[in-house]
């Protein structure tokens, strides 16, 4: 089979982003069919208003965490502590801003609170990275430690309470609008843009792939694999920290026990949906963004179709099973024999 024999359509379908995009479009179509005003966007109260904007705003934290997770998975790792890091960052920010009811007073200046929260998140990521790259633990176990201890630390910061935030300027992060669009969208876009440039315009992307495909070979070839892995986990922690700020700002509180619950699973799901192999190496940032949008659109569809939201988990489980099977070479081979066998039988008769 030569390349020329492919029609443009098959070539398009072969593109690695084709399936995630198709899924997203399909979900949007389903939403539009059941809810005619789904695609409708209008200008209200000085900003854009509509279902699509809502999905984008709510997807922003997941997009950020998925971006960090993509880099970690690309280096053959996994980070299951992101949910706990989200809780820690939210708790630190909420504690530093304080629970003063007046709405205009903050315990520490807000930029300091944000920096502190991000700094703590970065430290969490560094800790994971050091355990994986220096100590040599399996990534799932190294991050399991922080996953278990992290929620305890977050509750320690919030003193076991749900801290309600009354400081109005902080709400801008996760609930404010800039140029008619949610501000969280700009944050997610900025992180994505910076990461995309770093990965495509410098050798960073190549190095990360090299480490993911064969760490030993990469090290022998002169790639500083350890530093790269530590940086990937640190970046993932930082992303989780930003997501924690967005989430706590959006819900105007910090809950050490429940903030970011199951977020690690959603992020891993988003990354897999986007076509990044869990075995490391090849990764797609755009794919992960699309994956995160798929999850959020799916959630929205389940709510808007009037299906009990509890079904969400079952649907996600089925999606993970299907994606997993499609990624498995053994399964493809099996399906191949199912498809080929009847054809062979016809030829014989």
């Amino acid at each position, binding site marked *: 089979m030569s390349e020329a024999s492919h029609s443009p359509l098959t070539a398009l379908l072969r593109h690695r982003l084709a399936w995630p995009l198709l899924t997203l479009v399909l979900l949007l179509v389903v939403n539009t069919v059941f809810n005619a005003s789904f695609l409708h966007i209008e200008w209200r109260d000085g900003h854009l208003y509509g279902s699509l904007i809502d999905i984008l705003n709510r997807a922003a934290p997941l997009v950020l965490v998925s971006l960090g997770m993509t880099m970690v998975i690309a280096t053959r790792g*996994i980070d299951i502590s992101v949910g706990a890091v989200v809780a820690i960052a939210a708790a630190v920010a909420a504690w530093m801003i304080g629970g003063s009811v007046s709405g205009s007073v903050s315990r520490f200046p807000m930029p300091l609170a944000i920096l502190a929260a991000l700094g703590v998140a970065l430290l969490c990521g560094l800790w994971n990275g050091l*355990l994986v790259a220096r*100590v*040599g*633990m*399996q990534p*799932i*176990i*190294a991050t*399991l*430690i*922080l*996953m*278990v*201890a*992290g*929620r*305890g*630390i977050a*509750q*320690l910061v919030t*003193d*076991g309470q749900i801290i309600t935030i009354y400081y109005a300027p902080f709400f801008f992060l996760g609930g404010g609008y800039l140029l008619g669009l949610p501000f969280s969208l700009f944050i997610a876009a900025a992180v994505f843009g910076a990461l995309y440039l770093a990965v495509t315009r410098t050798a960073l992307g190549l190095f990360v792939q090299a480490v993911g495909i064969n760490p030993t070979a990469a090290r022998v070839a002169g790639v500083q694999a350890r530093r790269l892995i530590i940086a990937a986990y640190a970046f993932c922690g930082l992303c989780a920290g930003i997501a924690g700020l967005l989430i706590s700002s959006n819900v105007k509180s910090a809950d*050490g026990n429940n903030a970011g619950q199951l977020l690690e*699973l959603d992020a*891993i799901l988003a990354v*897999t949906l986007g076509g990044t192999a*869990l075995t490391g190496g090849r990764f797609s940032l755009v794919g992960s963004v699309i994956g995160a949008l798929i999850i959020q659109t799916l959630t929205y569809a389940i709510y808007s179709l009037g299906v*009990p939201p*509890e*079904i*969400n*988990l*079952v*649907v*996600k*489980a*089925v999606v*993970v*099973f299907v994606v*997993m*099977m499609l990624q*498995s*070479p*053994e*399964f493809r081979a*099996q399906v191949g024999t199912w498809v080929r066998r009847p054809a062979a039988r016809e030829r014989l008769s």
Partner: protein
Amino acid sequence: MNTTVTKPVAATVPTHAAPALPGSRFNPKYLPLAATISLFVAMATMGSVLYSGFFSAQVFLNLLIDNAFLIIVAVGMTFVIISGGIDLSVGSVIALTTMVSAALVEHRGWSPAVVIPLVLLMGAAFGAFMGFLIERFRLQPFIVTLAGMFLARGLCYLISVDSISMTNEFYSELSQWRVSLWEGASLSVGAVIAIAVLLAAVFIAHCTSFGRTVYAIGGSEQSALLMGLPVRATLVGVYTLSGFCSALAGVVFTFYMLSGYGLHAVGMELDAIAAVVIGGTLLTGGVGYVAGTLFGVLMLGIIQTLISFDGTLSSWWTRIVVGALLFVFCLLQRLLTSHRDKSS
């Protein structure tokens, strides 16, 4: 705490230097287990010295009673981890078991004699399904059981979003039933089941071909295959066993809580993995003891007991201490395996 951890390390230094000598009394592979047991004894001693009323038989039996379901789950998890895999679905399967039991007994009026075998079968089938996917399509156990975790939790909510309380006489009587061992000390039915499971698991792990195959797969799946061991059937069997253990733990959990709820046992998989690791099972597979898992669970239990006896420490310290312990034991494992790699 530090002194108790470092003591066994110092004691084994000579064996590190000459592992092949016939006179070496202490095999370093027992080190994590020895560390766990001495740490447990140290904590128990500390509690007995610090708090009056701590040193009583019932306090220690309560460790078994309050953690009966965790022991059962962790035993199943031990087999999975020894085989080199992981099972994240156990907590959700417990929740699903309590939910199905409660719905069938309370809403449908089925007899517990039918419901209990049914839920056990369901748990085993659920585990077998995941094991089949992992084995047949070479999928990562982590992702498959993650999807299983979503699925089981979601199925709970499909049955009911709210908690269903158990009013059935059989369940309420069994939950009150106690085996009195001696004056003032007794065990619940859950603890008795847990001990039975533990004994059965020790037998399976060390005295059956299934158990030895599990160890062989964990050591090296390729070698096990070349040796002609039934690798595929055993892998499916390991996850079936874990599913069955989770369902059994779910039944015990139902006796303990007397309700079915989709939010039961959230995060139980983490506790089970932590108990297995603290019990000295290597996460890379191939090395580990079911008896160690018992001490892992007891360790988690005694931390909680100490914190509740203290009264001034808040409950979240449990998580932080468990995380710290997990870190110490992973580090210890890492040192051990790097030593083994160098010597081989």
